C-alpha cells in the first residue's frame, strides 16, 4: 500500500447526498478478478451515456476536474454494498482523498486498506470546501495527515479526527495482515481456550 502523508490537489465537488456504491462502480464492473483498471468505469452511469459518450455536465468530465485527486461529497458517501471495488475504482482514477460529513461504515474502512484518506469535517466546513472546489484548477486543497489538517485554497485550516491506528498505517503504508501475523501466537492461544469453552464453534 502507498504511504499517505501530504497531498495538494484539485478537488471535485459532488454535493449529492447518499452517493452509493452502485453509483461509484456499477455492478457490471464487479466481474473482474483483479484490483486494477476500474478507474475507467468510476461513476460509470453518471459519467457516460448508454452509448459510452461522456456526459459533459458530470463533474469529472469537466476539463478542470480531469486530474482531481480529492472529492468533496455530500453526507453518507459510499453507502450500500461492501464492494472494495468502490475504493479501487476511486484510486485507479487518481482519487486519494474524500472529504464529507459522514461515510458508510464499510466503505470508510475499505478506504484505509487502499491508501485513501476519508476525512470527516463539520457540515459548515464541508460547505466552505465545496464552494472552494467549484473553482476547479484555480483552487487546490491541501491535506496534511500528520498534523490532521485540511487547508482551503485561501489558507483556511480545519482540523479533523482520525483513529490513531488507521493514521499510523496510512502514514507508513502498512499492511494489516502483516501486522496481525506478528500476533499469531496470541491468536493461537485465544483459539485454543475458546475451542475448549465452545467446542461446537
Amino acid at each position, binding site marked *: 500500500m502507498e504511504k499517505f502523508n501530504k497531498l495538494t490537489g484539485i478537488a471535485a465537488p459532488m*454535493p*449529492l*447526498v*447518499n452517493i*452509493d456504491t*452502485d*453509483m461509484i462502480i*456499477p*455492478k*457490471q464492473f*464487479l*466481474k*473482474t*478478478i*483483479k*484490483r486494477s483498471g476500474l478507474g475507467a468505469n468510476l461513476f460509470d*452511469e453518471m459519467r457516460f451515456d*448508454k452509448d459510452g459518450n461522456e456526459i459533459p455536465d458530470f463533474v469529472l468530465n469537466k476539463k478542470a476536474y480531469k486530474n482531481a485527486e480529492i472529492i468533496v461529497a*455530500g*453526507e*453518507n458517501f459510499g*453507502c*450500500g*454494498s*461492501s*464492494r*472494495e471495488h468502490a*475504493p479501487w475504482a476511486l484510486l485507479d482514477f487518481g482519487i486519494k482523498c474524500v472529504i464529507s460529513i*459522514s*461515510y*458508510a*461504515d*464499510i466503505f470508510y*474502512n*475499505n478506504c484505509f*486498506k*487502499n491508501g485513501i484518506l476519508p476525512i470527516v469535517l463539520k457540515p459548515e466546513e464541508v460547505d466552505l470546501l465545496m464552494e472552494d472546489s467549484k473553482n476547479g484548477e484555480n483552487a487546490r486543497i491541501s491535506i496534511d495527515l500528520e498534523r490532521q489538517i485540511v487547508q482551503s485554497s485561501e489558507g483556511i485550516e480545519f482540523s479533523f479526527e482520525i*483513529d*490513531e*491506528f488507521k493514521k499510523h498505517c496510512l502514514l507508513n503504508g502498512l499492511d*494489516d*495482515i502483516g*501486522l*496481525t*501475523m506478528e*500476533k*499469531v501466537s*496470541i*491468536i493461537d492461544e*485465544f*483459539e485454543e481456550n*475458546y475451542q475448549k469453552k*465452545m*467446542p*461446537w*464453534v
Partner: protein
Amino acid sequence: MSTAKTLYDKIWDAHIAHQDQDGTCLLYIDRHLVHEVTSPQAFEGLRMAGRTVRAPHKTIAVPDHNVPTTLDRVKGIDNLESRIQVEALDKNAKDFGVHYYPVSDVRQGIVHIVGPEQGWTLPGMTVVCGDSHTATHGAFGALAHGIGTSEVEHVLATQTLIQKKSLNMKVEITGSLKPGVTAKDITLSVIGKTGTAGGTGYVIEYCGDAIKELSMEGRMTICNMAIEGGARAGLIAPDEKTFAYCEGRPHAPKGEEWKQALKYWQTLFSDEDAHFDKVITIKGEDIAPVVTWGTSPEDVLPINSKVPAPNDFEGGKVEAVKRSLKYMGLNPGMSLEDVTIDTVFIGSCTNGRIEDLRAAAEILKGKKIKEGLRGMVVPGSGLVRAQAEEEGLADIFKEAGFEWRLAGCSMCLAMNPDQLQPGERCAATSNRNFEGRQGRGGRTHLMSPQMAAAAAVTGKLTDVRDLL
C-alpha cells in the same frame, strides 16, 4: 460502574483475542462466508504472499451473485467474466480446502440463506462475509457484518479482524402488527424514520413484542436491512424459536455439545440495566404496509400516501429528491397506488425464504398476474425451491404466470442476465432501490412479498389489505 451488558457487548467481549491500549481489537471470527464476487482478489493475495486459509473448516463458499437462474444453467454460464469468477471460486475452494456448495449442488443458493439453512450460523457467533447483507445472520443473535475484500483476505489468513467497537442502539417495536403488515414493513419503516445514515457507528438490537412474535425468517428480513439504515450490524436476542430453528441442522451441534451450546445461548440477551447510546421506539400498530418511492431505502411511505415534493425535505436531500423523482419518473402529489409497474421480482436474501414464498403464494392463489406484466420468483436456495415445489407453491406461481427460477441473487443486483431495461418499473422484494441497481435506468420500488404479489395481480402498486 454498572456491569450490565448489552447482547452486543457480550458477543464482542467473548471474541476479543487481543486489545490495544487505544481500544483497537483483534476480534476472533467464527464463520466466514465467501462468494465469487468479493473473494478472487483475496485468494490471489494469499497465493502471492504464500499464505494459507487459517481455518478452512470455518469457511464456507457458495457462488450466488453471478449465477444464471434459468433452468438451463447446467449448460454453463454464457457471460465470460461471470464464468471466470465462478470458476475462480471453484478452484479457490478446492485449492484452499474450504466447505463448498457449487452451482450443481441442490444446497446452493444465496450465501445468507445457505448459512442459516445449513446450521453454519448459530447464536453468539461472529459471522463475516464480503457482502453488506451479512447483517442477515444477526437474527440468530450472532454478530454479523459485511467486510471488504482486504478484510476477506485478512480473515482468511488470520481468522480475525481488526475492529473498534461500535455504539449500542436499541430499536424497540412494541405491541403487534396489523394484518397485511410484515417484517419487511417494519425494517423499511425503521429506515424511513432513522434515514440511511441513522445507524452509522452503531450496532442495532431489535427488540419488543412485535419482534418476538416474528418467525426466524421474518427476523432475518429485519436484520438483513440493518445495513440499509447505516448500522454495522443488526441483532435479535435468541429465544426458543431460534433454538428450534437451529436444532437438527446439518452443522448445528448434536448431543452433549447441543446441550452445552444451548446453556450458553440462553445467556445471550441484553441485561435489564444495560446501557444503549440511542433508543428508538415504534408502535407495531402504527406500521402500515409500505413501499419506496425514490432511489434510497429511506424514501419510504405507507402505500396509501402521495409522492412527496423536494421542498418537503431539507438540506442536501432537496436536490437528491429532485434527482430521484426524475429518475423514477414520478410527480409530486400523485398517489402511490396509481403507479403502474412492468415487472415483479420476488426473491433475494431479504425475502427469498420459504415463508416469503408462502406469503406471496397466498395472495396469488387462484389469480393471474396482470396481462403484459413480467413476474419472476427466484427462491433463495435450491432447498427453498424444492420445499416450495413440495408444498405446491411453485404451481401457484406458475399458474399465476410467474417464471419459476433457480436459486441466486438474480435481479436484486442484476449481475447476471436478470435485469430491468431502462425505464422499466419493478415491484421488488429486495433491499436496494439505488439508481441502476436492477439494471441501468431501471426503477425499483421495494416492498414485502405480499405487496409484490398484490402489485402483480393489479399491475399497480397496491395496498395488499384490499386483497386480504
